[in-house]
């Protein structure tokens, strides 16, 4: 049996020996130290394996940490960008709306400048509270010089006439309402009739002469004989002609030039008889080239 003391003594001796070897190695000349590499190289090769693994793991950790940090930053950036995009989208929508409104108002202003009659521009603020009439509520009234029976136009053409005028608002009965009637004129043939609304939300011109040469595609304009409209305001285009047996007159269906469901601003003609002549087509519609009914019976 080896006593504990002898083990301790053996250990001490080994330690001393190792210290001595280390000092001896340090004191050896550099050329001799090279011989140690015989053991060192394989050992380094062995150590290199876990070293590479650890280095790879370290790289991974580094990448992950960096990615995480970057993600945090990106998340913030993403949120900020999303907010920015939402803000820009909102602004874009607002600007688009403003641009559309500007175009509309520009057209209206252009029409107002070109019309030789005094007009009042008004905004549509509501529609008929019942389903029985096709009317609009506009934000101008008697205080702005409006009165019943005044004609209402848009850059697309005539849209209706005022039926009720209050101090600060007025009710406009649209041309496609069954109860509305204005005098109309087929532009090409100069045949006069009465323009009324239909059940389908269109308009029709009634009481045209039976021998009229009116045809599909003809433009119908206001005749200026009665009501608040001057002569020559576009109403619509004839889409269908009804010739019934045993009737003394013709009637024709008209597709109105103005889209009555999308009217937002209008001009009210306050005095339709101040000037006799309209300038050359101030409206946005382009009528078909007039064809002379040469030699056709009337």
């Amino acid at each position, binding site marked *: 049996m080896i006593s504990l003391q002898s083990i301790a003594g053996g250990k001490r001796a080994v330690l001393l020996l190792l210290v001595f070897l280390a000092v001896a190695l340090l004191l050896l000349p550099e050329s001799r130290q090279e011989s140690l590499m015989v053991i060192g190289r394989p050992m380094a090769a062995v150590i290199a394996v876990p070293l590479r693994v650890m280095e790879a793991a370290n790289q991974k950790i580094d990448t992950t940490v960096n990615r995480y940090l970057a993600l945090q930053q990106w998340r913030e950036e993403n949120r900020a960008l999303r907010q920015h995009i939402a803000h820009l989208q909102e602004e874009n929508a607002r600007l688009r709306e403003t641009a559309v409104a500007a175009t509309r108002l520009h057209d209206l202003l252009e029409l107002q400048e070109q019309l030789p009659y005094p007009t009042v521009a008004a905004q549509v603020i*509501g529609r008929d509270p019942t389903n029985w009439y096709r009317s609009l509520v506009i934000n101008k009234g008697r205080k702005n010089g409006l009165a019943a029976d005044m004609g209402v136009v848009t850059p697309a053409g005539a849209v209706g006439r005022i039926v009720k005028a209050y101090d600060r608002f007025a009710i406009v009965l649209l041309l496609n309402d069954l109860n509305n009637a204005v005098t109309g004129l087929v532009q090409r043939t100069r045949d006069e009739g009465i323009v009324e609304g239909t*059940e389908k939300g269109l308009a029709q011109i009634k009481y045209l002469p039976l021998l009229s040469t009116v045809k599909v595609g003809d433009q119908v304009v206001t005749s200026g004989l009665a009501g608040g409209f001057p002569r020559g305001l576009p109403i619509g285009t004839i889409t269908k002609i009804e010739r019934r047996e045993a009737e003394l007159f013709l009637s024709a269906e008209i597709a109105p030039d103005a889209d009555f469901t999308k009217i937002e601003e209008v001009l009210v003609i306050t005095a339709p008889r101040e000037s006799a002549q309209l300038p050359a087509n101030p409206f946005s519609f382009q009528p078909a080239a007039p064809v002379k009914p040469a030699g056709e019976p009337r």
Partner: protein
Amino acid sequence: MKVLGYAALILLLVPLQVVLVDRISLFDIRPDLALVAVCLIGLYRGEMDALLAGIAMGFAQDLFSGGGQWSNLCLKPILGLIAGLASRNLVNLTWLFAFGLILCLSVLSGTVMYLLKAYTGPGASFFLAARGIILPQACYDALVGLALFKLLQRGRASRTPQSALSYE
């Protein structure tokens, strides 16, 4: 307080109908909020309140309408009166009754409106009017009325304290 409530209702309802109801129109058909309100007043408050509210609402509605006649001024109080009388002998006011009553009164109102229009001006065919306006509007009115009825009932139930004899 009740008068103020009615005044506020009349002042708000018709502008709401004119300006905003267009946004909830389905196939170009808008609910007649005044009709629904008058029917509900008749059901909950009785015929006299409904009659007076109907006069005020019908008058306000006619002011903003393109029609020349005072048709709503005549019709709305009558509808309120009928709704009030119909609810007089009711033991339980159910949603089915409210739905059916508003539907029937809306059909009645639409038919009378059609007849008034046909009598005073160029009339459309009744079949077209029934298919295009009267029936769709009646259904829409009844649905809106039902929704408001449910809301009112919920509001009343939350305000009414539970009694010991309550079965619910």
